[in-house]
């Protein structure tokens, strides 16, 4: 019992302490979802502006609050596409984009 527990903890330690394995290449649909997620990752922070200095409470959306809903919709479409591709890595990145940028819709 103790031996198997020791082995399990050694395997767990090796997994966390070891190097990151090369991820398998994604198929075409998953690659497209990852590409769109990366594009949103880059573009979305640029969609909001600070009209007054570095005061982050004054953030507003370029194009008004409607743009926030457009971005949310885009993120949702990419998330659905990623889920449809059945690729865990693509779903993971699309989920991150959806969660991290859904707050954009609350900006004025």
């Amino acid at each position, binding site marked *: 019992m103790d031996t198997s527990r020791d082995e399990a903890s050694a395997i767990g330690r090796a997994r966390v302490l070891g*190097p990151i*394995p090369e*991820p398998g290449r994604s198929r075409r649909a998953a690659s497209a979802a990852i590409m769109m997620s990366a594009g949103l990752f880059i573009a979305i922070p640029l969609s909001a502006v600070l009209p007054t*200095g570095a005061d982050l409470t004054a953030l507003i959306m370029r194009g008004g609050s409607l743009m926030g809903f457009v971005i949310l919709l885009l993120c949702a479409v990419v998330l659905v596409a990623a889920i449809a591709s059945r690729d865990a890595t693509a779903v993971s990145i699309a989920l991150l984009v959806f*969660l991290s940028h859904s707050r954009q819709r609350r900006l004025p």
Partner: protein
Amino acid sequence: MIMPVAYIAVVWSVPSLSGSLGWLRVGQFSPFLWTALAVLAILSVIGLILYFVTIRPDLSHQPVMGSHRMNPAALFAVGIGIAVLNAAVEESMYRGILMNALDAWLGGGILPIVLQAIAFGTLHFNSTEPGVSGVLITALLGLVLGWLRRAGRGMLPPYIVHVLVDIGVWTLGLLQTA
């Protein structure tokens, strides 16, 4: 802080997604990596100071920094806590999840490092280091952190440098408010 917690809750609770956490590893440390880590940490902090001196960005709008009820030592301790937490979240997002996905799409190489660095730069467009200069300086830091992640095949090397740079940003912000 709700977003990272929500993300982790979803990924850990859905069995088919837990396999996407393969990037969550410390990495391999060699004498070369330790040396590169030390050199790049020093260069990053020097770059931050040069950015501060030449561009003169307003770094005083950081969380809690405006609190006048704390003495400088307590504020510095808070800054270390924020650096440790902020670096963990940003490293997980950019050198972890994003770079892992870009590697799966592009099959490694230099392009995933460049793309995650650009994304890391644009994240800071409306952040502590605002504007185009903030995007450029953080994209440059993103390249360094991405290379460290690739060279060390783990998350700890870029995390260490990120924490040091965040402590530097906090210290410079404190100096501005003083």
